[in-house]
């Protein structure tokens, strides 16, 4: 369906919105990136970039990063596909629960998986040593791949599930009616149609895994990757240009892969092309296939549940696996002064950022789909930078850019917002990071929803005299409230659990929960890590639930896509 853009001149609301959006994007992501690039050209930085392939150490790091990224992308996509296919095509009891369990890792705090996996499957893991008497080393490549795959497979799962469900069931039946058996239909019809989904998921998982900082720090051991090296450049070598250099090396593949992924995502449209899909898809009945799929599902689900059970238990025993006596000392310690400020601050900042991110994402989506004629693609891309750029890079960029006021020719155009001496003790910088990192999700779902909603609905509003702003508020927003809500939930959960950019931005006034978790994980005090994770999860569930209730009151059901015959 061709996207119809508003043919009339931009009205005042649109103009203001456009300027605002561009300005926000500039200060929230583009300027820090520019500074990274500038700094990486300074001596210690440019050395890294220039010798990226010739210097043995740097080359090894690059190779480590690539290997890890590709492995996680492959394993995560495979797991996501198996789970999605089982959910979509196999009949069994408990589908809803399974679906939820598959999504839990998305709101998982950093280190929850890594620490739990070590406790369960490490050298003295409860399962590995306790039951099988193995002593596998998970530090390094194996642990990283395992933990990252578990953490990110839900992305592939959601992607592929959506695609599977949007496949016209008649396609399978057409194949059957032409004499192809189920396996052949799967091979020649289903799989090829899912290729855009596979490609998209693969690439996304690649980006997410190479951008991750938390897990390489805890379970990476000596397996150095670009993100952890950039971090060490700041903390070990105290060399900002060097960190910028590594950031640049990390940024390049991330951006490239991101661009390629967008190409594949657009190819998705090929899937539901002919006429109107009808009927339901036939479930898998072959006993072998069922057995295989259900076993994998069962194993994976059990694994995820075990991880969370460990987190829960670990919070309430002294030293899980070593001294399992029940205790509340971790919570007493944390809530007795160690983490109170962090709980308050993190929650408040995340709550401030959440609606901002939600509205910002929707605004961009609306501008891209409805209003902006030329440059819509560019705007969409810029809006997505927040997640295309690795968190570590953003954090370093912010530290470089906002530790001092931003001056152009001696005139301050943006105050200092990061660092202890900044306004509000650096809270602004953190909110900015939260916003730019979580708005892309809302933007994406907003865009896909808006693409399905007939623009003539908004034209009707305009023809009745409602100016742009009014239409957006009274007509568009309620219709996309589903996307808006999920954008809000994601923004909140993500902000509460993000680590990589925040590490560089904490100040005496602002302490953030994830940073506290890192500190404790670092010291090996896993009891506190688990207790903090529990607190985080509870906070997210409670507040997430409240947000959900609040927005649902204003929701308009968009179960049937509002497409008028064209």
């Amino acid at each position: 369906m061709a996207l119809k853009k508003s043919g009339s001149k931009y009205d005042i609301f649109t103009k203001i919105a456009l300027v605002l959006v561009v300005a926000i994007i500039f200060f929230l992501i583009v300027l820090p990136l520019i500074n990274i690039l500038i700094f990486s050209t300074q001596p210690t930085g440019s050395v890294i970039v220039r010798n990226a392939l010739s210097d043995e150490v740097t080359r090894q790091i690059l190779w480590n990063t690539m290997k890890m990224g590709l492995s996680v992308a492959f394993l995560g996509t495979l797991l996501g596909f198996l789970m999605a296919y089982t959910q979509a095509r196999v009949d069994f009891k408990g589908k809803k629960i399974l679906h939820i369990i598959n999504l839990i890792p998305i709101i998982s705090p950093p280190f929850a998986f890594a620490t739990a996996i070590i406790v369960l499957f490490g050298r003295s893991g409860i399962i590995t040593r306790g039951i099988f008497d193995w002593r596998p080393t998970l530090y390094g490549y194996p642990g990283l791949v395992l933990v990252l795959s578990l953490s990110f497979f839900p992305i592939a799962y959601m992607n592929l599930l959506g695609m599977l469900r949007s496949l016209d069931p008649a396609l399978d039946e057409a194949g059957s009616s032409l004499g192809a058996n189920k396996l052949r239909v799967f091979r020649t019809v289903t799989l090829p149609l899912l290729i855009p989904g596979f490609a998209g998921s693969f690439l996304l998982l690649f980006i997410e895994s190479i951008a991750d900082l938390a897990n390489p720090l805890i379970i990476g051991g000596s397996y150095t990757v670009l993100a952890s090296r950039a971090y060490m450049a700041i903390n070990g070598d105290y060399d900002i240009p060097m960190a910028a250099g590594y950031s640049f090396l990390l940024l390049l593949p991330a951006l490239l892969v991101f661009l390629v992924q967008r190409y594949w995502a657009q190819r998705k449209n090929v899937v539901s092309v002919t006429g109107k899909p009808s009927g339901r898809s036939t479930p898998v009945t072959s006993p072998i296939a069922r057995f295989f799929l259900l076993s994998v599902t069962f194993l994976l689900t059990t694994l995820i549940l075990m991880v969370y059970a460990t987190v829960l238990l670990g919070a309430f025993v002294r030293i899980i696996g070593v001294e399992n006596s029940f205790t509340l000392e971790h919570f007493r310690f944390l809530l007795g002064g160690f983490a109170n400020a962090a709980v308050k601050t993190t929650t408040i900042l995340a709550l401030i950022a959440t609606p901002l991110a939600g509205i910002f994402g929707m605004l961009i989506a609306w501008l891209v789909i409805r209003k902006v004629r030329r440059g819509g693609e560019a705007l969409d891309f810029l809006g997505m930078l927040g997640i295309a750029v690795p968190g570590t890079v953003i954090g370093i960029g912010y530290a470089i850019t906002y530790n001092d006021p931003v001056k152009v020719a001696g005139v301050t155009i943006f105050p200092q917002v990061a660092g202890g001496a900044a306004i509000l003790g650096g809270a602004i910088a953190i909110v900015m990071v939260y916003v730019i990192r979580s708005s892309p999700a809302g933007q994406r779902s907003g865009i896909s929803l808006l693409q399905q909603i007939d623009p003539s609905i908004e034209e009707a509003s305009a023809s009745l005299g409602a100016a742009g702003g009014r239409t957006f508020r009274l007509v568009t927003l309620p219709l996309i409230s589903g996307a808006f809500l999920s954008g809000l939930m994601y923004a909140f959960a993500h902000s509460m659990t993000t680590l990589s950019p925040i590490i560089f931005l904490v100040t005496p006034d602002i302490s953030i929960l994830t940073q506290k978790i890192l500190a404790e994980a670092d010291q090996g005090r896993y009891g506190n890590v688990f207790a903090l994770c529990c607190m985080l999860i509870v906070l997210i569930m409670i507040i997430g639930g409240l947000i959900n209730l609040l927005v649902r009151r204003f929701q308009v059901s968009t179960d049937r896509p509002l497409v008028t015959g064209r």
Partner: protein
Amino acid sequence: MTKKRTVAVGIVATLIISLMAAIAPAHAARDLKGSQCGREGLVRTIKGVTYTCERVSGKLQYAEGRKLSGTLNVLCTPQELWCVEMTKAFQEKTGITTKFIRLSSGESLTRLIASKGNPEFDVWTGGPNDSHISGRIQGVLDTYKSPTRNMLKAQFKDSDGYWTGIYMGALGFCSNKNELKRLGLKAPTSWNDLLNPKYKGNIMMAHPGTSGTAYTTLWSQVLRLGSEDAAIDYMKELNKNILSYTRSGAGPTGPLGRGEIATGLVFSHDCTAAILRGNPLVVSFPKEGTGFEIGGIALVKGAKNPDAAKAYIDFALSAEAQNIGPAKAESFQILTNPSARYDRRMVNLKKVTLLNYEAEAAGVAAAKLKARFDKEVALTSSAK
């Protein structure tokens, strides 16, 4: 007595009492300047005026009081719990709103450098003093000689006043009793013990790039073996047995406690703290001699609240403050103030051979030596 007289006596009594009250100085408003330092501490704040103890012609007496105001921002490197307690104590004592963040020594230095133009912090407390020396070299520190300095041994201070020592820790071996038993080993007592193939994949230490502890380990090798080359060679050998390098010095205590490895190279006070939390560990020291760290405190250049910072430094050097470590913060470093209490859980220095650790030399050599470690040792860890 007649009614008239009673009233008269009452009036006179009231007058006398009022007069006495007017003349007699309020205990709280007493000016401490010049009076002898008492048991109450080397730093005392009365009605927002802080007096610090000084040695003047052989006598310890309170010097000119400073009226403190504003907020104090502390950059704190040791354990977070210690930072929390110290901050609380200082705040209670002086009434100054005190805030801190805890960053490792590397992170701290970078933050200071990054905010050089507009310093976020007033004072940098804790962390091995070679990073303070690096700080001096980078130009982010200022000098301040607290009067209490005079009480400290020479090794706990520098001549210019850029840093002063507030604690000291000895580097040692921290071993898991059960793992040692399983491997048929005794707690190591020599650096060479660690090269035993039985330890393969069973040792952890921090990475010198990010951890002061690890750099201390590295520099200790230079000291005892005589040259940087020899040190790197030793580390290459040791690397074969190392499972992985952690980010922070105390990092190995986690896996140690869980029995994933047999031995870790950590400061003995970190090991002690872990033991007290319930981990089955045991401390031992190498007979050839081991390195140590001196935790330093320094005034940040361009501090927004130098007066409060100086008062904080005075406070940190006082016995009262230093006693907080073992008492409330599970920190068992040796304390530098001679009047501070020796806690039995602290290391007994008489039983440990210390190498002649010179922070100055260590600090100067840091950058290049760490780079060498990165290139020749760190990324080749293949131990399983």
